[in-house]
């Protein structure tokens, strides 16, 4: 319990520090001005979300292999947190796009792939609600999670290579491609902060799932009496 409170406090402090850094430490971007400061938050969420889904994939594989409930709990937790993070990406994206390009939604490869990714994990969580028996739910959702994750690169490249025939507006070349060193540092710090926040949320969600599974067992025993 104590450790979880500490983790939560650290996560909040880091997120606030990252916000401070992206407003006051990072230099102003020349073409986009202050608007570019969404970048640190938006892209850091995207990266953390992707890593949460990666964690979900690993948990799914481990479940199929080891058949330990723990991995099932980790699977749901990381999928749900990943979904929250990608939701943030999908909300902040249009907020950024509107003043920058005058439209809310662009069918840009990254944003579109993120949206498909979001849909895939919504389906994953939906599937979980529709199977009653815990072992079967764990196994089948793990298998769907595996199929969904291997689909991710295919979705990305198919959209990138065939959907965007004209070059998409270059928002950021990603870190490394000409990003100012200070900007780069602030960006990496934001990514770290977002990962700690994600870790905290996953731990909290995991404890909830653990408890839910215990209550479920209790309830079944009570019904069987």
């Amino acid at each position: 319990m104590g450790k979880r409170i500490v983790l939560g406090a650290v996560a909040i402090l880091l997120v606030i520090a990252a916000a401070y850094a992206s407003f006051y430490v990072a230099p102003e971007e020349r073409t986009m001005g202050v608007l570019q400061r969404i970048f640190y938050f938006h892209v850091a969420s995207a990266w953390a979300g992707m890593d949460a889904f990666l964690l979900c994939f690993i948990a799914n594989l481990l479940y199929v292999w080891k058949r330990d409930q723990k991995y099932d709990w980790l699977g749901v937790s990381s999928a749900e947190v990943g979904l929250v993070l990608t939701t943030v990406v999908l909300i902040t994206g249009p907020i950024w796009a509107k003043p920058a390009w005058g439209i809310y939604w662009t069918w840009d490869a990254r944003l579109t792939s993120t949206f498909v990714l979001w849909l895939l994990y919504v389906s994953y969580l939906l599937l979980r609600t529709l199977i009653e028996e815990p072992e079967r739910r764990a196994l089948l959702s793990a298998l769907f999670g595996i199929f969904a994750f291997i689909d991710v690169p295919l979705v990305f490249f198919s959209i990138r290579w065939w959907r965007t025939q004209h070059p998409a507006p270059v928002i950021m070349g990603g870190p490394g491609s000409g990003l100012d060193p200070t900007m780069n540092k602030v960006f990496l710090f934001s990514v770290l902060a977002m990962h700690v926040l994600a870790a905290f949320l996953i731990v909290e969600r995991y404890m909830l799932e653990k408890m839910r599974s215990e209550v479920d067992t209790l309830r079944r025993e009570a019904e069987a009496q």
Partner: protein
Amino acid sequence: MTALRIPPTGLRFENIDKRYGGLFALRRISFEIAPGECVVLAGRNGSGKTTLLRVAAQIVKPTAGKLSFPGADAALPANGRPGYVAHTTMVYDELTAEENLLLFGKLQNVENPAARAEELLREVGLMERRDSLVRTFSRGMRQRIAIARALIHRPSVLLFDEPATGLDPPGITWLANSLREVNRAGCTVVMSLHGESEISALATRAVQLDAGRVIADTQSGASLHSILTFGSA
């Protein structure tokens, strides 16, 4: 009915658990069935008979514990699997009786599947309906084709879940005679039954289940009778 091709095989359950969610369908099941025995599983509905038979048929994977077939070849070939008759027919309604038997015969590498299918159709008395879709069959005929399917690969272990379901009195006599014949030929028979009948008369041993546990296991005539009459009521 069946000439045995594989060595007589027994069945051994070691600490078998099957859990569905938090609930145990089977709990610590341990007993052994010797090759050639004819065993009746008794118990109320929901006592775990069907689950135990499905575990023995290797359709359901036990949560814990080990299932083995003492006497069988070390590498159990596909056609050494038990013959299993379930509550459902386990055959295709959209195929004819003969097509069903051919399908399962070929899948299990039965030698000369056409001849084997014909032999079985004759035995279960469906020869004249061989080209009819199973969909058009009566309950009794469905049960006969289900039994034929289970026997197609000449198994050395037979697992019959309520095999008399849907059979008329002549059908039950026929089934009892067939089972006696296979059992004499060395085939191990495990079946779940409700009450006493010509079929239960074949049993030399009764195992009673309750709430997923073995609560009685007897070979003596008197207690066998009592388990069969009262235990499964």
